[in-house]
């Protein structure tokens, strides 16, 4: 268990207050000469002991109440509540040829992952002897639900199969572990997004359980006017914005949004603002916001590039030969500030423990707001925290009842 505002734990020192009052009063007890004790009731030892015991319980109850309130204000959360299994799970649709398994593992570089075939209730099936494996296939979401209900949840899940647009239709994921979708190329049908180009034996399409494309690896990809940047992933803390004279206002807007992020989450960004002619090799590796209408030069290799102009012909601005480009997409430039503001908004909803993510990628989705963080274990922390706070309040109420009962004795 960790605390968001751990400094409030110092408030637990208030536990000492009743203790001091007790000790102070104990010392101050004074003897008073009295005429005679004849007319006073005799002290009932049992009753006296009962009262003393009650007093101790009362003291304990009050102390715990103080501790609980301090604990509650400190905002506790459980970090590792779901990572019991400590393993990653590779789910494979039954219609994937078993012979491809090793190849898939190699490509994804996940040799050590647990493999499960998505048959009904995970019943082991010898697929070599089955004529039509599709009859054993079950719905992906049912399988995920079963995993979710299992006490030993995996750290993450990758689902491999032949997916199309219908698989992702209106699904909303509410899992406490991240789920990645790996689509294999399907010769019989057009790819749902028209983005996949088969080459070689295996093409892998990564989708972050979202309707739209977010990332493509090991493929040659030509951005087109249809490609929209709907998810922004910042991977370095150094950001370069390249702009032309006529885009000064937009540049300022982006800069301001980034600054907001920096201030709000205490993540120090280094933001370089350049005109296109000033861009050179020393900015290599930065997250690059390319606002300029000019061609992106070669030195941007290894950079994460966001091309913020979709009015240019495809062939004019991306060097097709470069295999080093990890990611790029185009976006109407005016949408970027909104996108950055969205990042701000989602961050705010997942509370303060996410502020220390300076070494992790920051995600934001432009269209699919609800999915931004719900798929990650981080959102699970927030849920846990909510229920924990509820329990705290219930316990406080219980203490108050106990106090009332003991006081009435």
């Amino acid at each position, binding site marked *: 268990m960790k605390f968001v505002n751990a400094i409030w734990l110092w408030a637990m020192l208030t536990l000492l207050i009743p203790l001091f009052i007790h000790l102070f*009063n104990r010392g*101050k*007890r*004074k*003897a*008073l*000469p*009295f*005429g*005679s*004790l*004849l*007319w*006073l*009731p005799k*002290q*009932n030892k049992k*009753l*006296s002991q009962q*009262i003393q015991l009650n007093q101790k319980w009362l003291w304990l109850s009050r102390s715990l109440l103080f501790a609980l309130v301090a604990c509650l204000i400190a905002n506790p959360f459980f970090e590792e509540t779901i990572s019991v299994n400590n393993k990653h799970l590779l789910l494979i649709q039954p219609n994937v040829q078993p012979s491809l398994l090793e190849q898939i593992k190699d490509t994804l570089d996940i040799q050590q992952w647990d493999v499960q075939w998505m048959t009904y209730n995970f019943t082991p099936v010898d697929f070599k002897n089955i004529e039509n494996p599709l009859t054993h296939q079950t719905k992906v979401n049912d399988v995920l639900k079963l995993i979710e209900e299992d006490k030993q949840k995996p750290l993450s899940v990758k689902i491999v199969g032949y997916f199309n647009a219908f698989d992702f239709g209106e699904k909303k994921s509410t899992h406490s572990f991240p789920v990645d979708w790996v689509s294999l190329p399907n010769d019989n049908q057009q790819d749902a997004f028209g983005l996949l180009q088969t080459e070689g034996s295996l093409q892998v399409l990564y989708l972050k359980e979202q309707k739209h494309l977010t990332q493509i690896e090991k493929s040659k990809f030509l951005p087109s006017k249809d490609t929209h940047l709907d998810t922004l992933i910042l991977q370095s803390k150094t950001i370069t914005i390249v702009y032309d004279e006529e885009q000064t206002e937009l540049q300022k807007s982006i800069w301001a949004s980034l600054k907001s992020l920096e201030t709000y989450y205490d993540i120090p960004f280094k933001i370089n603002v350049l005109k296109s002619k000033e861009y050179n090799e020393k900015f290599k590796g930065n997250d690059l916001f390319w606002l300029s209408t000019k061609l992106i030069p070669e030195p941007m290799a290894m950079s994460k590039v966001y091309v913020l102009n979709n009015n240019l012909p495809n062939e004019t601005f991306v060097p097709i030969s470069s295999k080093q480009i990890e990611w790029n997409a185009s976006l109407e430039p005016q949408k970027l500030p909104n996108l950055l503001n969205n990042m701000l908004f989602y961050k705010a909803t997942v509370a303060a423990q996410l502020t220390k993510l300076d070494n992790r990628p920051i995600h934001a989705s432009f269209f699919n707001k609800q999915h931004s963080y719900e798929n990650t274990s981080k959102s699970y922390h927030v849920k846990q925290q909510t229920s924990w706070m509820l329990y705290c309040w219930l316990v406080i109420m219980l203490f108050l009842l106990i106090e009332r009962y003991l006081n009435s004795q």
Partner: protein
Amino acid sequence: MLAQKTLQAFRQGYHQTKKNTTDYQFSQFRNYTPGDDVRLIDWKVYGKTQKLYIKQSIAQQQIMVSLIPDLSASMQYEEAGISKLNYSKYLFACLANLAFRQGDTVQILHQKPYQQILDALIALTNLTAANFWIDYEKLYATSLMNKHKNLLIYCSDFYEYHDEMMTWLAAHTKKGNEVIAFHVVGHQEKEMSFSKNTILVDLETKETQRLDKTIIQEGKANFLIQQQRLKQQLSQLNIHYVEMIMNKPVQDALIQYLTYRNQYVS
């Protein structure tokens, strides 16, 4: 002096006579017989009747006022700097003053009647409280040896272990003495207005008792019960009971007593 001042309020309409006279009330005449004191012959009657008569009268009986305080250690109990014993002494000083003014004789404990008030007051001042009541039993018993009928005024907190006080008071009433019992009560003692952290130390037995909420509540109720029981016991013995609460002036108790006395005599 305090007693003098206290009594000023009770002396409205009171006039001192200039000569000491013995009150004589006419009863009858009888014939003179030889040997009778010649001075007793009523010469006025002889002038009218030419016969010797002797005027007989009944002298008004003097009352011996016995002031007896409780001298047990419990009378050391103090409230607002005044002990129960001192409070009793104050009351007795007032009563002694009144008695002297009426020509009554005043006796404190078993000692001889005092001729002067100053002697009585000095004797009162020298009284101290200690030990148990039973230790003074013989001293108290001597007051029963008095041949004359007394007005016994007893001032105590009435903490008794084996009805020793009641037995002694009963003996007095049996003898025909008129007894008035003043009960000295501390205000805090009655209301049990002590804090929970107090430990009470019995002045007689030296036992201690730690107060708690229950004991305070029960103690307060118990006191009233015991006081009621005391009143009943005294009433059965024909003893008048006067409560003296220490935070109230002595005059209150005096008024109670004198009102009763006025009704009793008339």
